[in-house]
């Protein structure tokens, strides 16, 4: 995940999918689900299903793109999971991909603003970071917090990215660097925002009877749940409560027959620092207004009470929009297989991932279970 000037969207997607096929020791799949938001806007390429199937030499199979703004990756996994669980397909590939560095910044900002309400938010010049900044300012006002209270989220993400070879920023950040960082949209500074970058990640989903004797490393998906909220922030009765996060988490806990206490690590959608505490609250890990308290004293570190962003999160691993939700699940699989090396969460059995679209107008929650 970085600025891959030398690689096109199709090359990134094919590379990631081939690696996933190799990891799963399989040659083919019945279908491909592509998670992507902005290929049309930023690379003038749509129709990614057919493109990627063709480029993989799998032309002929079913292949479609799934879009849910920044939650596209999670949404693609959800669609793929339903297809496999229904029995329609034996085995499918999911690839999340985003190519963001082929256009200059204003176009990317305008593209990302399409995740919000085009007629009443983006049309008034309100960027996506602007929406998150307004949410953060009101949150700080309501709960009497300062910018530094959010620092543990960025510091934790960067500390974890140091050990992730796929991460964009493999450098730790100090509290001094955090407090001195330039404001992008007050109170959001550079270290509160995830970076624009290129990237792709892929998974193979299979019914257990088609694992071809390769079941030892397979990780089970025990919940896949999607919920929505108003698209526009201004249409919410309560703009400080992420209702889609709450609803999709509740559905996921019910499917997996677990409670938040059973979750050993949580790959949440830390596109901006403010999303961290608000997600922890709505998903049931912290009381309302107390999300930042959980991050104090190493509470969210790999050895903390609830490890989050264990491989760097969106903040430091990077946030190639449609790929992020798939990256989260790849990283959860690494943790549950015990392959996360220096970032290994001890005795991880249940991992939860959450991919959000827009200001959590879409929330896609997955729970994975290790052996």
């Amino acid at each position, binding site marked *: 995940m970085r600025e891959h000037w030398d690689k096109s969207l199709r090359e990134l997607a094919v590379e990631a999918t081939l690696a996933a096929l190799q990891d799963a020791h399989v040659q083919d799949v019945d279908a491909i689900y592509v998670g992507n938001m902005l290929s049309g806007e930023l690379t003038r390429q749509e129709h990614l299903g057919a493109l990627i199937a063709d480029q993989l030499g799998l032309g002929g199979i079913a292949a479609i793109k799934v879009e849910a703004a920044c939650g596209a990756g999670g949404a693609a996994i959800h669609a793929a999971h339903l297809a496999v669980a229904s029995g329609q397909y034996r085995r499918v590939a999911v690839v999340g991909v985003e190519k963001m560095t082929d256009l200059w910044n204003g176009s990317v*900002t*305008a593209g990302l603003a399409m995740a919000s309400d085009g007629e009443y938010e983006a049309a008034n*010049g309100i*960027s996506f970071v*602007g929406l998150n900044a307004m949410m953060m*300012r009101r949150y700080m006002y309501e709960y009497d917090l300062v910018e530094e209270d959010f620092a543990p989220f960025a510091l934790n993400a960067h500390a974890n990215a140091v050990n992730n070879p796929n991460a964009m920023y493999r450098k730790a950040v100090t509290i001094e660097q955090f407090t001195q960082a*330039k404001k992008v*949209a007050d109170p959001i500074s550079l270290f509160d925002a995830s970076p624009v970058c290129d990237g792709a990640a892929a998974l193979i989903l299979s019914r257990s009877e088609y694992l071809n004797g390769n079941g030892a490393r397979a990780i089970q998906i025990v919940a896949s749940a999607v919920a929505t909220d108003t698209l526009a922030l*201004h249409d919410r009765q309560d703009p400080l409560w992420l209702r889609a996060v709450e609803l999709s988490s509740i559905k996921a806990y019910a499917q997996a027959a677990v409670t938040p206490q059973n979750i050993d690590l949580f790959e949440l959608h830390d596109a901006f620092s403010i999303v961290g505490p608000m997600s922890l609250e709505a998903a049931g890990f912290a009381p309302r207004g107390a999300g930042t308290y959980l991050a104090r004293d190493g509470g969210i570190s790999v050895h903390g009470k609830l490890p989050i962003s264990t491989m760097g999160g969106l903040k430091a691993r990077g946030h190639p929009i449609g790929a992020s939700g798939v990256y989260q699940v790849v990283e959860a699989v690494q943790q549950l297989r015990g392959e996360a090396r220096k970032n290994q969460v001890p005795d991880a059995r249940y991992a939860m991932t959450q991919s959000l679209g827009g200001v959590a107008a879409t929330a896609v929650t997955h729970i994975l279970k290790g052996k």
Partner: protein
Amino acid sequence: MAENLATHWRLRAQRYQLVGSVCSKCAAKYFPPRQVCPKCRGTEFEPLRFSGNGELYSFTTLRSAPAGFESYTPYSVGMVKLDEGPLVEAMLTDVNEDELAIGMRMEMVTRKIREEDGERGLLIYGYKFRPAQSRAP
């Protein structure tokens, strides 16, 4: 990218007069207007022109902007809680960013939102909010 005139023309009542809707069944008030009431699922509405007065719910100042708005940076945007209930997001005007504070009284004004580039580029007008010039109700 230049848009068709109709994109803006069909929003004229919202942009120039802050016209939203009120549900005929449960009396819930909406800006922007809706086709289905999320509270009661009613589909009958009457238009409602909002006063344009309210309180600043939150705000920020953008240092980098989406394409089409770069020449205006830095500019402040906010969420205003209208006296009738709904929240509206808009650019803020006639105010320095360090004077902005949550809770301050605001009023709607009609201003130029942006200018499109080129000979055929449109001048897009709409609502912005500024600190209230008259005393609060």
